């Protein structure tokens, strides 16, 4: 049965940290650069200092309010994506580790590892099963 804790083990936490950082940092960097670039170009286009202040200040206020609302939502979405992906990456490894632990501690050489359909670890699991076959035959 699956459990539904947000982060279940150290490996998942490690992946989650990497994923969230690799999602959030570029987002912040590109967003920040765009934010400044757009206002810089607009200010240059308007030219007259009074007009720049008069016309762009209300726009900045509205954009800032929008960002204050949207950035926490965006972070929640990115963290959710991070949790989902980290689980997809760490889940099979964790399962394999548990099954191998079970075989080693219980000395159950007749037991074979199982993988879910489409699991990326299938070639490795097949190899381990062949190895277990050979050990059992000896």
């Amino acid at each position, binding site marked *: 049965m699956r459990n539904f804790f947000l982060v279940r083990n150290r490996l998942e936490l490690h992946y989650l940290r990497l994923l969230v950082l690799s999602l959030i940092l570029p987002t912040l960097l590109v967003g920040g650069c765009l934010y400044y670039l757009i*206002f*810089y170009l607009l*200010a240059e286009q*308007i*030219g007259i200092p009074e*007009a*720049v*202040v008069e016309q762009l200040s209300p726009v900045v206020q509205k954009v800032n309010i929008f960002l204050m609302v949207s950035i926490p939502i965006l972070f929640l979405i990115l963290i959710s994506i991070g949790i989902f992906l980290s689980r997809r990456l760490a889940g099979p490894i964790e399962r394999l580790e548990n099954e191998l632990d079970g075989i080693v501690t219980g000395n159950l050489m007749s037991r074979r590892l199982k993988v879910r359909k489409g699991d990326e670890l299938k070639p490795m699991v097949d190899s381990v099963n062949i190895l277990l076959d050979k050990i059992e035959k000896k």
Partner: protein
Amino acid sequence: MNRLRIKILIGILVLLIIVFSADRIFNFYKIASCLFPPKETFATVKSFSFSDKNSLKEWSEKILKGRVSYTVESQLGESYVHAVSDNACSAMYYQIRLDANRHPFLSWRWRVAAFPNKTCPDNLSSKADDDYAARLYVIFPAIFFANSKALEYVWANDAKPGTVVSSPYSPNIKVIVVESGQKEGWEEEERDIYKDYVAAFGSRPMLAIGAISFMCDSDSTKSKAETFFDDVKIFYKK
């Protein structure tokens, strides 16, 4: 290993903060400019005598409300820009890169034929009366526009020459009254931008000059204004 990475990240952040703070105090740009004097990056002299009809092609027009008529005219062998504003506000704008800390000078000639009809001619702090027959800007653009600064040399209706006030739009725009009231003939001006900046803002310029601009406007007062500009020149004194 992870702790090491976090320490490296924190170290980089702290280093950036220290460099940024030190730059605010010591102005590395100025030190670098002294050690490696710029040759082609900064214009040493730019002069506009408006001697032919296409002289204004180098300038771009920035329109805020309506279009002020800026035309190059000649009379008695003398050519100049004739600006006529009828309830309009637009400026001629020229991008130029200059190090304000090297004491650049701005000189020009101007003459006012008609002033905008202000309700309170000597009030420089009212948006409703923020019209001048003639003004020249020196603009110091920042990455974020709210940090940009500007010096604004104006020919006011009735304010005392030498008056320096903040624009009603932003404390980062300083209005400097150079001439005031009706005068016969041309007036010649020469301003040390660095000195004016320090006097107006109380600190040396941290930003390079990015543009100069001249304008005649009368949109706030919904009236008419007419001005002549000539010999706009930006230079470093030897």
